[in-house]
């Protein structure tokens, strides 16, 4: 029996992986080939998706990007498949994009059957929980602190310190909440783990529960991710059946689905939403670590933070902390997206420069035109011009340049981009997604969008740019959360680094 691996990742499905899988089964049956199609997560080399991998005595060989039409030709000469086929990309581990990575959190993603606990265990699963139990609760928190892991949801707060606060707060009930709202454009790391390695998240949350003394966990998944919701639900059922969740494990997980509100990714808004309310942001203090879900001490972490903990425990804090630069320790799953030739997930130690990421790893733009602007860190992240391509991927380095790395999304634009429109979109997005609590965010964003329209129409650009700058100051200092508070990043970076796009005389028709 030859095993053929075909991703069931939503992005692979979106470009035809299901049809490829079905055609392989049909073709194998027709030719009488002994083939077993295994659906996996994605390796994250999205320009090659659908990428299939065929088991051979010398390891797996990959082919991509496949279409259903390519399948009969590929199998025409039977098995083993010919490595001389034009779609053969060789051993996946040898593809430079994968070879150059340091895969810790994503070590298994795209390799195993996501819903096979046997596969998960065979690839090192549950070693982290085992070590946590041997270290004890306090020892586990210590280990996470020593690893230097910082929250991967955006704010970069040290995970160990957050856990310690919850561990030290006495209460009859505590909660672990996984933030899987992943609303940032250009990001998909959370989605890939849920679809490709769901037991990793279950293990990470179980460790968190053990470490802080919580017996109940929630995973809040955005509704835009139906595939991830399906896989996670199935995985929790399978884990329960094996006693890895439930009474025996002293930890339970419930899955909750969002309802299309970006702001619900903000931690206090998410907690309100979990409680069945409008997702309005709460003022802090109290911190969720003291009074979180239903008023109880709560660890709320991004999915990647939680999913990185098992490897930290399994291989030791030092192994993780030895990677990275400055105060950014370990690895970051960088997500290359948009107009980029090699779009995909690149997990690497902190410290690569933006230029290396976009030009070397990403291979430049998909359109072949020059890369002109790169938005890092989602819709609240700054636009970087080529002149800042020497910025290293590191929390502090990005902050020093009025940007942020956020959840690790890198969206590339070529020279056809109109930065005035991008600035307008940032304000419009703030208006659409504002929770409504703060006036600058709720109203200012609407006025800002209108003012940008005037600038785009060529109406007194200088006076209107001054108004925008003023509004951004108000947003920055008069907002309760980072939706209003950080919208100035994309707006002001666009104005600062691409001023020519704001004063260009335009055809009246282009102003819509």
């Amino acid at each position: 029996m030859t095993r053929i691996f075909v991703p069931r990742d939503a992005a692979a499905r979106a470009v035809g992986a299901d049809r490829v899988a079905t055609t392989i089964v049909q073709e194998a049956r027709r030719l009488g080939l002994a083939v077993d199609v295994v659906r996996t997560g994605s390796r994250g080399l999205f320009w090659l998706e659908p990428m299939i991998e065929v088991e051979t005595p010398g390891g797996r060989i990959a082919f991509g990007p496949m279409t259903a039409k390519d399948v009969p030709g590929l199998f025409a000469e039977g098995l083993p498949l010919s490595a001389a086929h034009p779609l053969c990309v060789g051993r996946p581990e040898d593809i430079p994009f994968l070879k150059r990575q340091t895969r810790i959190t994503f070590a298994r993603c795209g390799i195993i059957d996501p819903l096979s606990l046997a596969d998960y265990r065979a690839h090192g699963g549950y070693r982290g929980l085992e070590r946590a139990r041997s270290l004890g609760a306090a020892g586990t928190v210590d280990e996470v602190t020593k690893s230097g892991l910082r929250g991967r949801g955006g704010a970069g707060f040290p995970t160990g310190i957050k856990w310690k606060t919850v561990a030290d707060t006495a209460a009859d009930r505590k909660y672990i909440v996984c933030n899987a709202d992943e609303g940032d454009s250009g990001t998909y790391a959370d989605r890939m783990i849920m679809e490709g390695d769901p037991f990793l998240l279950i293990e990470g949350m179980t460790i968190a529960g053990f470490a802080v003394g919580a017996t109940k966990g929630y995973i809040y998944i955005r509704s835009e991710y139906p595939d991830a919701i399906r896989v996670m639900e199935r995985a929790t059922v399978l884990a329960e059946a094996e006693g890895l969740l439930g009474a025996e494990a002293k930890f339970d997980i419930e899955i909750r689905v969002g309802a299309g509100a970006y702001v619900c990714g903000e931690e206090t808004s998410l907690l309100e939403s979990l409680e069945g309310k409008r997702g309005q942001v709460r003022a802090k203090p109290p911190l969720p670590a003291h009074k979180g879900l239903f008023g109880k001490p709560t660890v709320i972490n991004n999915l990647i933070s939680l999913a990185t903990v098992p490897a930290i425990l399994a291989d030791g804090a030092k192994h993780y902390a030895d990677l990275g630069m400055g105060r950014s320790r370990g690895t970051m799953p960088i997500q290359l997206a948009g107009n980029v030739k090699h779009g995909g997930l690149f997990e690497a130690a902190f410290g690569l420069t933006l230029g290396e990421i976009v030009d070397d790893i990403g291979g430049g733009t998909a359109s072949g035109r020059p890369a002109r602007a790169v938005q890092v860190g989602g819709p609240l992240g700054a636009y970087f011009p080529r002149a800042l391509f020497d910025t290293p991927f590191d929390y502090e380095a990005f902050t020093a340049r009025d940007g942020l790395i956020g959840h690790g999304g890198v969206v590339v634009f070529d020279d056809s981009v109109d930065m005035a429109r991008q600035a307008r979109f940032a304000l419009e997005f703030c208006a659409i997604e504002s929770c409504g609590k703060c006036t600058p965010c709720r109203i200012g964003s609407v006025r800002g969008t209108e003012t940008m329209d005037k600038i785009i129409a060529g109406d007194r650009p200088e006076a209107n740019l001054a108004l925008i700058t003023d509004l951004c100051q108000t947003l920055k200092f008069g907002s309760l959360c980072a939706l209003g508070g950080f919208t100035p990043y994309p707006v002001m970076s666009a104005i600062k680094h691409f001023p020519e796009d704001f004063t260009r005389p335009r055809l009246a028709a282009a102003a819509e």
Partner: protein
Amino acid sequence: MLPILHDLQAVFGCVPPAAVRLVADALNLTRAEVHGVVSFYHDFREQPAGRHVLKLCRAEACQSMDGERLARAFLDRLGVEWGDTTPDGRFTVEATYCLGLCACAPSAMLDGEPIARLTQASFDEIAREVGQ
């Protein structure tokens, strides 16, 4: 409350105003509170959508791959605006902000199924599939 609202919408295609009172009674809340929740979230509708729903991504990664121009052309061809349903009541086009398919932009979801690397030809195919 969100799980209840999701279930209602799965059955009725929307959260009907009549259901707001029932939910309020069941959860011991006021109707205003329930309405507040329903109206806060972009997902919940007060009217059912068309038989087919296309959620088109309008976020940055999809913008960088010309998604806005393709989307505009498609809306114009159907003669509808964002959020509208075609006059025959069969097809709704909605904006969404990122589907996590950003490395294969531009992208969309048709009746819950992801589609990416959209081109003019993909839109022709979508139109055929939904009978437009």
